[in-house]
């Protein structure tokens, strides 16, 4: 008798236990324990994450999880950020909104990345979900301020509207006035991507004034410096703030106004914006610097001395985004002042210039790696590197989880020895045992991939460009990297052999992007035929791949696992290779 009781936990109890499990990975693991756990779990999953919107259909998601409140979808491959994915490729969110509008009137949160969002989609969201709270659009495009107006007008419980890095058709700044005067629930607003020259400052000011719970406010470049004080005056509770343009005629009254208002923001932890900075106004933020944990100066075209002064005031900085104007000297100061630094991104101020315009070299990265014990994530653009520096970096900072290095000129060798940088990157993967993300650059042979396949056992995402000698390189990665989920490759001499030999591996990954390499159309067809659970998509703007000989390499190839089968929204320059592809194309 009591044996039976031990096995029949009431569902509600299990549900309650599961409610403490938030991570998708854990939820997925829970659902695989047994059939009854699968059932219980699917009814109580409140947040769904779909890493590739084409891996599954909206209907399948809704069928399995009947009561979710929050969905996160990702669309285009990462290389779309650098214009490698032609317009019209796909990633449309509308079908998802349409299906959910019918099934889920109680949906609260939508988070999208690299998807095409139309005004129609936004209007449908505004109309369908009465308790809608969170809209985060990251690197999305396809909508205008009209769509935003619909959201503003209808979503009475909206807490978060975040349009980070989106491309928005700026028809009118007056969309902000569509928030009713009774609306006060805004907690987070990020409109930094908007352009409009005429911004509705009074509507913005009134909105900020009545939304007393506002914690995050990221303005766009159009908001002038002298307007910031008026806006901030009504929001001393802000935790994250992004300025607009940070330049104006130097006037003492504007300066003191700004400094005064900023110093009354006692909760401020994160600053960003700073377009067109003039150094004279920088000291206005010194009073808040000691509490800052995050600082984004990646648009601030100020020189090293001013950057150094600023950074020296921020001992609690955990995250810094900056242009290479900071130079090696600035990074040395950063290394000695900011011992809590976890993430650093250094962007190039003159990426297309033939000569270096600033004194930023591998030394800066070495200094920060040596000096900042908590540093785990780096994105660094520079023009020279050495194996010696990379080995020093790897040895001193084995806690790196994300290491992205971009040496601006492709195939640049070690500047000291003129050798490839295989050994340097090899050290990175060997010492940094928890490395999850890696981007390579510089002169690299198959050797570096051998190191990666051997050591990078936790690596989930790898970006490769202009590297390697042969298929062996790709084979090392596909056969060795056990945790690999996303692989993106461009302009490498990788071809059919490695791809076909590791076909099964591709089903264990989210996606593979491979462009301007040596994969033939024949291999693509074969892969599509043999692997029904992979969508093998050839992207070629030159015309149908079968109008060229079979052994001709395809321009771009995007392979991803899917249980939804081939998609139906492909533009004319994308072809799916499947079992019937041989028949369909001839």
């Amino acid at each position, binding site marked *: 008798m009591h044996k039976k009781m031990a096995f029949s936990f009431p569902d509600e109890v299990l549900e309650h236990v599961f409610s403490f499990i938030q991570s998708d990975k854990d939820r997925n693991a829970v659902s695989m324990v047994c059939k009854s756990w699968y059932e219980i779990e699917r009814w109580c999953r409140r947040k769904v994450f779909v890493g590739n919107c084409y891996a599954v259909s909206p209907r399948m998601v809704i069928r399995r999880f009947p009561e979710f409140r929050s969905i996160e979808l990702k669309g285009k491959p990462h*290389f779309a*950020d*650098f*214009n*490698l994915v032609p317009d019209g490729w796909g990633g449309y969110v509308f079908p998802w909104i349409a299906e959910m509008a019918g099934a889920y009137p109680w949906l609260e949160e939508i988070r999208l990345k690299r998807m095409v969002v139309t005004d129609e989609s936004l209007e449908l969201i505004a109309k369908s979900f009465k308790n809608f709270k969170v809209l985060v659009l990251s690197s999305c495009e396809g909508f205008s301020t009209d769509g935003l107006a619909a959201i503003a007008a209808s979503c009475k419980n909206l807490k978060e509207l975040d349009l980070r*890095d989106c491309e928005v058709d700026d028809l009118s700044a007056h969309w902000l006035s569509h928030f009713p005067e009774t609306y006060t629930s805004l907690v987070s607003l990020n409109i930094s*991507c908007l352009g409009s020259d005429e911004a509705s400052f009074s509507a913005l000011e009134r909105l900020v004034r009545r939304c007393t719970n506002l914690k995050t406010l990221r303005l766009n470049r159009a908001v002038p410096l002298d307007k910031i004080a008026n806006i901030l005056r009504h929001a001393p509770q802000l935790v994250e703030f992004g300025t607009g343009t940070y330049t104006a005629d130097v006037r003492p009254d504007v300066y003191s106004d700004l400094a005064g208002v900023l110093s009354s923001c006692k909760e401020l932890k994160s600053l960003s914006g700073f*377009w067109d900075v003039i150094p004279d106004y920088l000291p206005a933020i010194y009073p808040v610097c000691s509490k800052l944990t995050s600082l984004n100066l*990646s*648009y601030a*075209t100020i020189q090293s*001395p001013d950057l150094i002064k600023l950074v020296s005031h921020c001992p609690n900085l955990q995250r810094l985004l900056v242009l290479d104007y900071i130079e090696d000297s600035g990074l040395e100061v950063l290394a000695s002042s900011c011992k809590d630094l976890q993430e650093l991104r250094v*962007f*190039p*101020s*003159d*990426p*297309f210039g*033939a*000569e*270096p*315009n*600033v*004194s930023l070299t591998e030394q800066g990265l070495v200094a920060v790696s040596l000096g900042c014990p908590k540093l785990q994530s780096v994105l660094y*653009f520079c023009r020279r590197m050495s194996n010696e520096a990379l080995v020093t970096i790897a040895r001193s900072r084995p806690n790196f989880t994300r290491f992205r290095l*971009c040496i*601006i*000129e*492709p*195939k640049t060798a070690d500047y000291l020895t003129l050798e490839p940088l295989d050994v340097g990157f090899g050290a990175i993967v060997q010492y940094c045992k928890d490395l999850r993300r890696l*981007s390579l650059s510089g002169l690299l042979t198959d050797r570096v991939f051998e190191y990666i396949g051997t050591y990078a056992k936790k690596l989930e995402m790898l*970006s490769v*460009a202009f590297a390697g*000698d042969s298929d062996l390189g790709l084979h090392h990665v596909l056969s060795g990297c056990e945790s690999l989920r996303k692989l993106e490759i*461009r*302009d*490498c*001499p990788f*071809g059919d052999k490695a791809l076909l030999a590791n076909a099964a591996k591709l089903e264990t990954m989210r996606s593979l992007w491979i462009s*301007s*390499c*040596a994969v*033939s159309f024949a291999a693509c067809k074969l892969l599509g035929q043999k692997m029904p659970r992979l969508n093998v998509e050839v992207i*070629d*703007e*030159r015309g149908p791949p079968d109008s*060229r*000989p079979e*052994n*001709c*390499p395809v*321009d771009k190839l995007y392979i991803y696992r899917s249980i939804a089968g081939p998609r139906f929204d492909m533009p004319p320059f994308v072809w799916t290779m499947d079992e019937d592809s041989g028949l369909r194309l001839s």
Partner: protein
Amino acid sequence: MEGSVGYDNDLNLRATELRLGLPGTEPVSIVRSNKRSLQQVADDDCGVNGCRSDDQNETAPPPPKAQIVGWPPIRSYRKNNIQTKKNESEGGGIYVKVSMDGAPYLRKIDLKIYSGYPELLQAIENMFKFTIGEYSEREGYKGSDYAPTYEDKDGDWMLVGDVPWEMFITSCKRLRIMKGSEARGLGCGV
């Protein structure tokens, strides 16, 4: 956008050859790699070997680089931000290179943004972290090992400060901070 195609005096066959090569070293380097010939594909050679084979014309200036699509990997909105900065100043900026004896990097400054010599010299002092001496018409720059010089339209090296400012900014082609005896020699009014 074409890179100037080599400085060979021969038939310039390279211009017609389609390869995937290093950008900047081969002017015909490919922006869209789909221009490869079939023969090359069959050879399974992506032109990794085809680089730096033409070192004959070392005196010729390097050909302008062909821009590669999507490289360096920077988001469009960052590129646009840099672009607007450049465009704003391009409308009238007078950019000259500044070199300093002993420094590994050249710098570039816009002469237009300075209103006169004191401001310019202050900026250069800040840039290279040194002090220029005091200027006098008779003795040049005294009190330091450095002297700011410039190359004018005629190719002559002049001491900064001798001519009126307006004349200077229209005739200055590049700046050089001379060090040591060379600097002192110039100040002595040869």
